[in-house]
């Protein structure tokens, strides 16, 4: 009891640290699962021909794109690749458009890595 009283602040700090860490992880997971849910709903609606509703979800997915982690981006890329032909232009297909949007975002993100790789090569 004396120990608890003496180190109560550090204990509180520890408890809060654990709590906050759990909440951060939980939040990331929640964000991820929510994104997957959104993506799947979008694919379903597009596949079933509910165009306006799919369009709405498409807009939302595009808005979230920037804040998505690389792994989620790659997951989206893989998932949409299985549903479309990336070579053929299918401007009317929202899944195709989303696939290319994801692809472009990945390209954009890889630019930074490319720059760093080139700098590394120059330095050597």
């Amino acid at each position, binding site marked *: 009891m004396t120990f608890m009283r*003496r180190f109560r*602040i*550090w204990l*509180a*700090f520890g408890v*809060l*640290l654990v*709590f*906050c860490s759990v*909440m*951060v992880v939980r*939040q*990331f997971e929640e*964000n991820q699962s929510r994104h997957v849910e959104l993506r799947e709903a979008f694919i379903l609606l597009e596949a079933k021909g509910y165009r306006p509703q799919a369009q709405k979800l498409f807009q939302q997915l595009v808005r979230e794109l920037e*804040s998505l982690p690389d792994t989620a981006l790659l997951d989206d890329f893989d998932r949409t690749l299985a549903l479309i032909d990336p070579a053929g232009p299918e401007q009317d297909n929202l899944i195709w458009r989303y696939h290319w949007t994801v692809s472009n975002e990945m390209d954009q993100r890889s630019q930074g890595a490319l720059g760093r790789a080139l700098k590394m090569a120059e330095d050597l």
Partner: protein
Amino acid sequence: MNYSESAGQRVRVDGKFFRLGRKKFHLKGVTYGPFAPDAEGCTFASREQTARDFQQIRQLGANLVRTYYVPPRWFLDLAEDHGIKVFVDVPWPKHLCFLDDALRRDDARRTVDEAVARCGKHPAVFAFSVVNEIPPDIVRWSGVAAVEKFIDELVDVAKKRDPDCLCTFACFPPTEFLRPRNTDFVCFNVYLHHGPTFDAYLARLQSIAGSRPLVLGEFGMDSIRHAEAEKSDFLTQQIELACRNGAAGSVVFSYTDDWYRGGMQIEDWAFGLTTHDRQPKASFFAVQKAYAQAPHFPLVATPKVSVVVASYNGGKTLPACLESLRHLNYPDYEVILVDDGSKDNTPEIAKRYPEVRTIQQDNMGLSVARNVGIAAAQGEIVAFTDSDCRADEDWLHYLVGDMLRYNFMAMGGHNFLPPEDSPVAAVVMASPGGPAHVLLSDRDAEHVPGCNMAFYKKVLDDIGGFDPIFRKAGDDVDVCWRLMESGCRIGFSHSGFVWHYRRSTVKAYLKQQAGYGEAEAMLARKHPEYFSPLGGSIWRGRIYSEYQSGFSLGRSVIYHGIFASGFFQKLYQPQPSLGPALCSSLEYHICLTLPVTVLAFLFPALWPAATLLFLVSIGASVVAGLKAELPPRKQRWWSRPLIILLHSLQPIERGLARFKNRFQGVRRPIIQPIIDLQTKGKGRQIPREITLWSRGPVERYHLLETMQRRLLKDGWLCSEDSGWSDFDLEISGGRLAKAQIVTVHEDLEMGRRNIRCRIHTMWRLGTGILFWALAVTMVLIISLVAHSLPWSWMLLLVLPVLMLFIEHDEQMLAAAMRAYLRELARELDLIIVEPEPKKPTEPTAKEAAALSATGQNQG
């Protein structure tokens, strides 16, 4: 007779009194009639008889007659010729439920209007009473507010016809709860034969009258049921008591026994000072003698009074102040002007008043200036007023008179807005934060304003005068509290008043409020027991101020008596609600309006909440602004908007100054040296208990008193147990934490004892509120942003860091208190017994023997 000086002039209200021309007009009246109606239905005596009566009334020493019917023009002319004023009662059927019938209401309005028109602004008319003694059951039937409103309406009708006429309504104890707002003075008919009861009731009536004059509209005694000698004594006593209580006048009922009422000649009552045929009774001569002395009956003593005026750059109003002090109606007084380093023309003005003793000093603040005045005072009583005040000529007469009569050690009185002050000053008067008095009863005060107060010099000397830390304000509050703590009673004189020029610009007003805020912070440090944990001052009495907050959560209650038959039907008013004050306070804006508004920029959904919070605050100001009572002649189109603005700004300005001073002024200069000296090397965890062993019977009260004195001397905020607490002393000196000390004594053998002291530290209320407000705000923000910023959860780690700071403050405070206790132990020759590091649960025989030996050694 020579009445030319005031001929043609009309009486006007002047503070708590009346004035005719330049002189005060004290009503010395008798009721006159009504008499049996003549052939034309006139209820007045013949012209010749009236002339003879007026001559006799003048011989009586009276200057006013009260009539119950509207007099004819010749009557007024005759009165004017004899230097008599007429107080006209306007009769209409008030004994019927007049509010139930539109025709009766119209009739009342028309009657009042015709009465005022008929008197045609005649200079002999003193005032109109728009109604006399409304039966209490009719008031209860129709509703108090409705009756008050109707009385106000009748006054408006009269004022519309003649704006300069004085109006009142004649009230009596069964309807004393009626408080119409538009009357010029308060008039009461009182028949109380017991002297002390009458005296006490006059104080009550003065409380009801507030800033308006009080007139005794009727009082008297029946000669048939009482001996004439008794009646003479009674009338003498009542006139004297009325004067001593500062009534603006009194009207004896009646001039003659000749009285016609309700369609018949009254034969079984004889209230007159003269018989039917105008033969003076003994009571006539008694009243004659009393009226000759009125209103200034000699005081029981006239101790010398030193009037101290402390002035700093008060040159603008100082001449009016000193001029008024030249003409005080008191036999033995001196005026001392303490010029507190003024940079204006104060020294030149002072030279124009050679009778005033002027003391020049460098600017050292109000309290020091007042103390200098006390030191220079030769009087037994020291009275204080400010350079922005001018005193009524009877100021000292009433102040000292009440002080002597009721054995008060200190006395205060009203401060009114001078009629010549500007409309902005009137707005300032109606705004919050003005000088107010706090009354515990009709005579006893808890606080009197510094611009009008008097003390016995001895009691001021006993408490060490004013505290020099109060440079601008707060000195009066501090002195009142200290006097009450020392057992002195403070009184309130309803008629010893001064005129107080208010600040005449918004800037000056806000500057004054900032000064009051600083003073409040200093008072809170010095007298924490008089302040709530939220920082508001705690008063036991009722605050009387011109400012009205406009809200009251409670309901007024009237004691009507069984079947509305109570003789004294008293109004019990609830205390004004703190709600509106809280809604416009700085704390409200900091804790609610500001955070929600800032959050609303991030989350637009919060805009309605932010707007609502702002509107609530503005709403409180608007209600107060609309409810404010402004003198009609000082009202301008901008007056109420300005009051609303000042009502909004004042709490912020005052609050800022209070907080600034509270945080800047927290003085803990001696903590670290004491901690270093006394507890070096003890580590962070300070033992919270200390045992002091004494060889003799040292009282723990003595230890506590010494400790408290020492702490206060060193600038700590220290309050003692009020009788309801579980601690002996509470020290609020830390910025974030406070400490409580609880002591106990253990009697040992041979009269020796242990005094055990426990130091308990905890968060201050403000710290707790801020901490949890921050925690809630963080959780709110995190819950809103966590979706896009998951790392925002880590913000919560700020909280334990804050707790570390608070813990540090607690430790420092505990260390300081412990150091104080150790030092006191040394001073009081007590031995510190350090606590055992560990107590064995079951001592061995050897250990028990050792412990026993220690106890014997101590014993």
